[in-house]
């Protein structure tokens, strides 16, 4: 068995917020009919959660699920379980119009943590990150500067960011630049 490593091997940077690559995370792209009881049960069985509402994400104990579009979810499981979880989903959804793809090795997960974490993201995404508009439990698919990414608040002062592994370095350096000490905007 090969030794799987994450894109940036836990690189971290302490600016006015902490930017940290999170290592390996199991991730399954799941598409199907949210209204279908078989689909709902398959999601519940694999991650213990109900299908989230529009732009919502629920994570508990390393497992969770995020709303990606009206027919797409991102299922989170521990990395070591991702291959079997994807197979379980495919098996459970056999015969229905659905797709489960293990994308764990195609993604990077980066966390931004600190009092001004909102600002680190706000500088590089066309998203309203005011407290009134964005809260834990919500997910946003958007872009970070020039690349596609998704993020959610995994705590009061903490963002979890998912991007393509091929642009891991770009995203990390981007967040790093955005978090450089002295570049706080002090608006959010």
């Amino acid at each position, binding site marked *: 068995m090969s030794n799987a490593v994450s894109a940036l091997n836990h690189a971290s940077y302490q600016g006015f917020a902490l930017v940290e690559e999170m290592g390996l995370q199991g991730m399954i792209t799941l598409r199907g009919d949210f209204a279908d009881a078989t689909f709902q049960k398959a999601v519940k069985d694999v991650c213990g959660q109900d299908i989230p509402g*529009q*732009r919502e994400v629920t994570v508990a104990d390393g497992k969770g699920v995020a709303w*990606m*579009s*009206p027919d*797409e979810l991102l299922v989170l499981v521990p990395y070591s379980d991702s291959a079997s979880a994807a197979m379980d989903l495919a098996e459970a959804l056999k015969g229905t119009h659905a797709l489960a793809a293990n994308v764990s090795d195609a993604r990077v997960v980066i966390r931004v943590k600190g009092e001004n974490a909102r600002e680190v993201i706000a500088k590089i995404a*066309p998203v309203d990150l005011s407290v009134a508009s964005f809260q834990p439990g919500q997910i*946003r*698919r*958007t*872009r970070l500067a020039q690349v*596609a990414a998704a993020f959610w608040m995994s705590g009061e002062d903490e963002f979890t960011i998912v991007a393509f592994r091929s642009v891991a370095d770009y995203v990390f350096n981007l967040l790093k630049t955005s978090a450089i000490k002295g570049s706080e905007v002090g608006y959010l």
Partner: protein
Amino acid sequence: MLILECPYCGVAAEETELAAGGEAHLTRFGPGSSDDDFETYMFMRENPKGVNFERWRHANGCGKWFHAARCTMTLEVFGTYSAQTYEPPADLIKAIKKKRPDWPGYGAHK
């Protein structure tokens, strides 16, 4: 800055999250069609001054295609709607008519 609300994820997405897809509600002519029909489908566009119906994709977002009605002159956005339709919704047409009484109406040129 152009802002369109994506009907699929409900996000008020600004232009840099979107990809433009050209004129909406074209009738597709594929293999087996006449040269004239194919040419019209391929190249001929309405390009109106005023009310226009367009296709957009929430590319840096949920990834879905949707439709938008807006004014090519003032850039006013009248509304966005689902891709699963062959023509603009009746209530949207009504709302545009109210705002632009001189507008000849959807499909008037055809």
